[in-house]
């Protein structure tokens, strides 16, 4: 039997030795094998990269407030959106939930003491940092202007910027992803506590497991593709260069074969976070747990089959495009199941609106809108008009920012007491969540209209009739920026002045809440034995069912 839930832990528990206090030198942090410390190393690094990528976005939105290119030159603007994409995708979004939250929680959620390969885990972080250094070096050396998609032959034969540096950086970061994914897969298969069968796993574990499958299978393709781009650029080989008989579309197929599953790498863990938060604050089991688990797997599998929908107007075959469009509609079905099930989880629940819950509910709404616009883009005839316009930009920001980033922040807030042993100030948390929700919509909804109106993406200057919507978007971005800065402030503040947290301040289910906050290095004094399913909440009384 697991140790009884200790929701009124005395503050004295915080002064006992925990993973934070055991070893306080920098060296102890940089040579740690503890998955919780590695998670924090990631948390700090990805936050830094988030704000660098965000700085690029700020400059972009400032420039786009006026139709003329009056803030920066064409080339600088092109470098800004390239670095924004590269940093946000590979150095922030892809590692964010798996490496910062997943590393911390996965072993605890399954009742293990650590991941299967702790040294590999530390290596993953160092590899990530090395890749990040190359990328920042490219930025400092003057930036790259190929777009984060590196389309050939522009990236191989025409760009005069530091393409190779960035390619090397992304190539290296890819190995960090692969090793993390490998670690998660092996851990979930071989290190679950006694009684923790597959269908007793929290959905956060399912989500990160499916994500890991994508990570290990898709990322190597990206690595090889980027190597080929570098080889062509360095040695003048004719792989993608039509003048030497190569095919630029070959690059697009190889690139999108990775990059479409990559978007599911970014969104599946977010769905896992939301599936932990909503049951807790509705005090109710997730509706349709098995369907949710199968939907996660379905998204991962189908996600590999739809890459061609990025190439509908690129000159590929009409019949091939029809197949990809059909599959793109099918991949939306499991996502729809999840949205409906989260909504149904609220039914007959007992709902409170903490900051994590606000983020989670915001995710459901914004992900729904982003997903539905994805269906519009999957519609072949409409995509001819909408592809390469701001409609696409709006679509993917609704999923990545309105979805993944909000879920990430929700997760950070939800597990903050466990990670830090402190409570953050709840009112500030709610204010930030609402500010982010409002600022986000004001920033990106006008972009749907801009796209349908015909404004292409990656445009430094634009015809004056698009200015009104651009001004609204930039105004929204300023609000969004404020919203993102707030947690940096009050979460940091809470580390020193926040109320100390008990082991389970949210009265949540899940093995991670059975430990003190912060947890000891070995997680569990005795390996827990699991005898119940996840999410054993009881709405009438608002407490968990007795163990």
């Amino acid at each position, binding site marked *: 039997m697991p140790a009884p839930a200790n929701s009124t832990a005395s503050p004295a528990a915080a002064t006992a030795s925990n993973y934070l206090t055991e070893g306080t030198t920098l060296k102890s942090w940089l040579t740690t094998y503890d998955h919780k410390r590695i998670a924090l190393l990631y948390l700090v690094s990805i936050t830094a990269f988030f704000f660098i990528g965000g700085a690029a976005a700020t400059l972009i939105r400032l420039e786009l407030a006026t139709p003329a290119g009056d803030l920066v030159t064409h080339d600088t603007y092109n470098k800004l959106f390239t670095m924004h994409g590269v940093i946000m995708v590979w150095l922030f979004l892809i590692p964010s939930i798996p490496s910062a939250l997943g590393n911390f929680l996965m072993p605890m959620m399954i009742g293990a003491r650590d991941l299967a390969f702790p040294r590999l885990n530390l290596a993953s972080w160092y590899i990530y940092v090395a890749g990040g250094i190359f990328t920042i070096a490219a930025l400092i050396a003057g930036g790259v202007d190929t777009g984060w998609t590196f389309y050939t032959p522009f990236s191989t034969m025409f760009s005069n910027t530091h393409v190779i540096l960035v390619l090397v950086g992304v190539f290296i970061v890819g190995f960090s992803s692969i090793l993390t994914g490998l670690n998660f897969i092996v851990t979930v298969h071989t290190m679950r506590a006694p009684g923790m069968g597959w269908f007793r796993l929290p959905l956060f574990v399912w989500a990160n497991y499916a994500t890991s499958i994508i990570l290990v299978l898709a990322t190597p393709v990206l690595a090889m593709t980027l190597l080929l781009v570098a080889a062509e650029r360095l040695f003048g080989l004719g792989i993608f260069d039509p003048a030497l008989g190569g095919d*630029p*579309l070959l690059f697009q197929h190889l690139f999108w074969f990775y990059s479409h599953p990559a978007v599911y790498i970014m969104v599946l863990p977010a769905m896992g976070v939301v599936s932990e938060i909503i049951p807790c604050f509705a005090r109710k089991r997730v509706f349709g747990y098995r369907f949710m688990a199968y939907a996660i797997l379905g998204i991962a599998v189908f996600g590999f089959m739809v890459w061609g929908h990025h190439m509908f107007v690129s000159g590929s075959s009409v019949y091939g495009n029809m197949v990809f469009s059909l599959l793109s509609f099918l991949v939306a079905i499991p996502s729809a199941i999840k949205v409906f099930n989260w*909504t149904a989880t609220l039914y*007959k629940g007992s709902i409170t609106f903490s900051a994590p819950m606000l983020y989670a509910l915001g995710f459901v709404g914004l992900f729904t809108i982003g997903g539905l616009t994805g269906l*519009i883009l999957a519609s072949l*005839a409409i995509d001819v008009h909408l592809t390469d316009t701001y409609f696409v930009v709006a679509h993917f920001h609704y999923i990545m920012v309105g979805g993944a980033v909000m879920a990430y922040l929700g997760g950070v807030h939800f597990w903050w007491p466990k990670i830090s042993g402190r409570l953050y100030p709840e009112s500030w948390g709610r204010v930030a969540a609402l500010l982010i929700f409002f600022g986000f919509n004001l920033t990106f909804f006008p972009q749907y209209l801009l796209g349908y109106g015909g404004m292409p993406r990656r445009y430094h200057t634009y015809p004056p009739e698009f200015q009104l919507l651009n001004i609204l978007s930039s105004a929204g971005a300023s609000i969004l920026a404020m919203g993102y800065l707030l947690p940096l402030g009050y979460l940091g503040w809470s580390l020193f002045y926040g109320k100390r947290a008990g082991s389970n301040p949210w009265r949540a289910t899940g093995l991670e809440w059975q430990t003190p906050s912060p947890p000891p290095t070995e997680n569990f004094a005795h390996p827990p034995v699991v005898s119940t399913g996840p999410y054993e909440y009881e709405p009438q009384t608002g407490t968990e069912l007795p163990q």
Partner: protein
Amino acid sequence: MIEMFHFLPASASGAAARFDLLMLALMLLTGAVALAVTLLIVWFSFHYRKGSGADRSDAPAGNRIIEVAWIVTPLLLFMGMYVWAAYDYAQLYRGPANAMPVFVVAKQWMWKLEHANGHREIDELHVPLGQPMRLVMTSQDVIHSFYVPAFRIKQDVVPGRYTTLWFTPTRTGEFHLFCAEYCGTEHSVMGGRIVVMPPADFTRWLQQGTSQPGIAAHGFELFRRHGCSGCHSAGSSVHAPDLNGLLGRTVHLQDGRTLVADENYIRDSMLLPKKDVVAGFEPIMPSFAGQLSEEEIMAIIEYLRQTGAEHASASK
């Protein structure tokens, strides 16, 4: 006047009207779903907030019937959307035979267009109202994309091959032309306008400003000047395939494959002649890579297309 921006851009092609209808249907459908989900979340959040006296007995943890229902229903709706959109999309690629050709070469950072009679334009395309148009396009350098929002059409323009775009303008006026595939420094200013004119005005316009021969005549001149007719004409001592009426003809290749000769095949034959050798012929044709510009290649192809038309009418 360039159209002022409205929520919907001007609808100025045959395709645009159909697409706007489809888009409206999609917006209504997706909007309804989004609204329904939002309203449910808001209602549940309010009605089942902690402390409300709502009835929470028998709270369900799952319901197989409902799950199946909300799998099958979206599936059917999605299939409907898919079929409608795929059908309209297929129409885009079925150009009528009487489409007027225009040859487009994109380069960083301008559009070069040439009408069949040789009239050239830069960053502008004049077209007659109601006439189906067929754009044959290639790029000299990187990938660009020919985008006319008012026509709701877009097609990437790829170096090393031809891509095709059909449209029929249905309103006179001037409409934005944008480059829609990022292509470097001046991507955002690589645009121009499409000018749709009444047919009579267009015919007059087309005749002006043409001092050079039409494209096909230019192609014939190149065909002779570069020595193509030395091997590929009837009186030649060299055994080379007959090119009259080549476009659209089925060709049997040495390795056993068969293909239908299109613009891309002819272009490859000139630049990479050993790639697809015709059955029964030696691979002795030299490559003309580096000797012909994209416009010249298009001109030769247009000349060959004319020989096909003459051939067909002569054999009637």
